[in-house]
């Protein structure tokens, strides 16, 4: 175990996989020397050279498609967008090409690539630097979607993503990069996709969440504990595939559930989890499923507005209490 940041854990995962497999390479803006938008690839160019840590022109569709073509022909590209917001520019290559290709081509090739997307609000980055698009990509057949919350999960999931033979959209929350935690040194530390993690056991309510909101939920659970409410926190870790079993088993125990996420609710991960629970655990519910996320507005700039909009510990505590 070593103590390190989420950002460092991601960098470590990439470095280990690059040492292990010479077909792994990194593609993105300012990755070499500068270290990418959040320092994840800092130091890697020194070890692996700029043929493997490649700085691109500002052409998100172009270099995402470059990665698709490279992946189709035997490389394992790890692409970084500086902010996940502009995956909108790259989404054709991900959705119409990468996600479809193996299927359309009858299984004759595969697209082993990872798309790393820093995401989420906070810090007055404004509407164009705060989006979360995990629901978009979870919708799409042929893609996988991961969204780690802790340094250890970041390492274990990114390594699994790089070894996965499918396109994986990997959401890294901006507010997580500086979080510190214990991370296994084992270069075979792999976290399987489709296995949620119960980050806290509880018996009165299940909070299903992922990414940065896991930390808010854990804070909220501490406060709720004092009021006699014992919350179980499920960190989904991957959204596609989704660990339905862990969710359902928890709900069977607690009989109450809050589906929590940072962003808008319509057609979202929270909607999906709520729908699954009402389909599969209907008879175990003591109260209606509840969803909590952001109201339907873009993320505003001014701190007072941004705070008003984004979920936080207090709001989660309030939302849970309303369910009792």
């Amino acid at each position: 175990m070593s103590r390190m940041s989420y950002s460092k854990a991601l960098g470590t995962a990439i470095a280990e996989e690059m040492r292990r497999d010479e077909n792994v390479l990194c593609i993105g803006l300012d990755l070499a020397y500068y270290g990418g938008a959040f320092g994840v690839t800092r130091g890697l160019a020194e070890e692996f050279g700029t043929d493997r840590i490649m700085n691109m022109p500002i052409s998100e569709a172009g270099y995402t498609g470059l990665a698709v073509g490279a992946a189709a022909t035997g490389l394992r590209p790890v692409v970084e967008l500086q902010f996940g917001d502009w995956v909108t520019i790259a989404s054709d290559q991900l959705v119409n090409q990468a996600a479809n290709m193996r299927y359309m081509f009858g299984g004759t090739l595969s697209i082993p690539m990872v798309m790393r997307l820093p995401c989420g609000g906070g810090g007055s980055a404004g509407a164009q630097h705060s989006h979360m698009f995990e629901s978009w990509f979870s919708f799409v057949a042929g893609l996988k979607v991961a969204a780690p919350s802790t340094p250890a999960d970041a390492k274990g999931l990114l390594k699994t993503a790089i070894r996965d033979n499918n396109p994986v959209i990997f959401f890294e929350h901006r507010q997580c990069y500086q979080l510190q935690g214990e991370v296994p040194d084992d270069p075979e530390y792999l976290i399987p996709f489709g296995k949620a993690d119960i980050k806290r056991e509880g018996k009165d309510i299940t909070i299903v969440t992922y990414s940065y909101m896991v930390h808010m939920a854990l804070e909220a659970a501490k406060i709720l504990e004092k009021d006699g409410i014992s919350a179980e926190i499920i960190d989904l870790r991957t959204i596609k595939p989704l660990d339905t079993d862990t969710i359902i088993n928890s709900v069977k125990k607690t009989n109450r559930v809050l589906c929590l996420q940072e962003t808008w609710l319509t057609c979202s991960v929270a909607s999906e989890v709520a729908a699954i629970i009402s389909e599969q655990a209907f008879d175990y519910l003591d109260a209606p499923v509840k969803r909590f996320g952001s109201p339907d507005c873009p993320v505003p700039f001014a701190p007072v507005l941004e705070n008003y909009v984004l979920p936080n510990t207090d709001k989660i505590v309030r939302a849970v209490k309303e369910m009792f």
Partner: protein
Amino acid sequence: MDLKLRIKMFRDMYTIRVFEEKVRVLAMQNKLPGFFHLYVGEEAIAVGVCSALNKDDYITSTHRGHGHLIAKGGDINKAMAELYGKATGYNKGKGGSMHIAAPELGILGTNGIVGGGIPIATGAALSAKYKKDGRVAVAFFGDGASNQGTFHEAINIGAAFNLPVIYVCENNLYGVSTRQTTVRKVEDIAVRAQAYGIPGVIVDGTDPDEVYKVAKEAVDRARRGEGPTLIECKTYKHHTHFVGDTDSYMNKEELEAWKKKDPIAVYPKRLIEEGIIDEDGINQIKKEVEEAIEKAIEFSENSPDPRPESALEDVYAD
């Protein structure tokens, strides 16, 4: 230029022609599902370019892709069966006309997204350079596609990193019904090469010898590590945008003028004139090709449908 290669070029062009004309009839008879964009009239491009490639070189193709598939060595039985949506097709009936791939031949797919294949070919070229395996990649695309952002972004990347990739624009003057010079101010696509600091060449896309020559030069250049070339092939398609389309936008006189340059008519004459083959030889090839295509149709019609449940397979790789 190798004589056998030139004869093979005729055979390949003729294969494409007969294949496409059969597809046209079959589609109009509703024997084939989906819709089809034919390569008739443009055969010299795919054949000229692919004749300059090795079996393991890569190509990406377009919605109008049967010609590229065949020119790159595609099996016409598997190709036809795919258009029929049969289990024996290249992609088990999952892809169809606009989504056929044969990775073992370096064919990374026809493509339903205009401009979608250009970055993918560039990525294949990156693989080749990364692995130093000596391969090159070719992106085929239309004049319409040259207005897509992917054209700009991918060629800039290919140029900046000196990737072994050749960008082949099939300029048939139209995108669907739209005369492309009404939505683009420059006459030639080749001038756009200047925006990326790479050579831009114009060639008569009805002449397979000429196409081969410029393609060979571009391929050699790419293999030497000198980076991409943009090749613009002037051409014209003989049919409407897709089979069953209205033809109101087509310019009949222009079409007639281009038909005079039809490679399927002109090229065998040239081969005969140059004494490379005689009339009988040409006829023999034609007969063989026609028989092969009939067999491909037979093969396809006798092939089983995919198992319905196979629809759920091949989504994810293990």
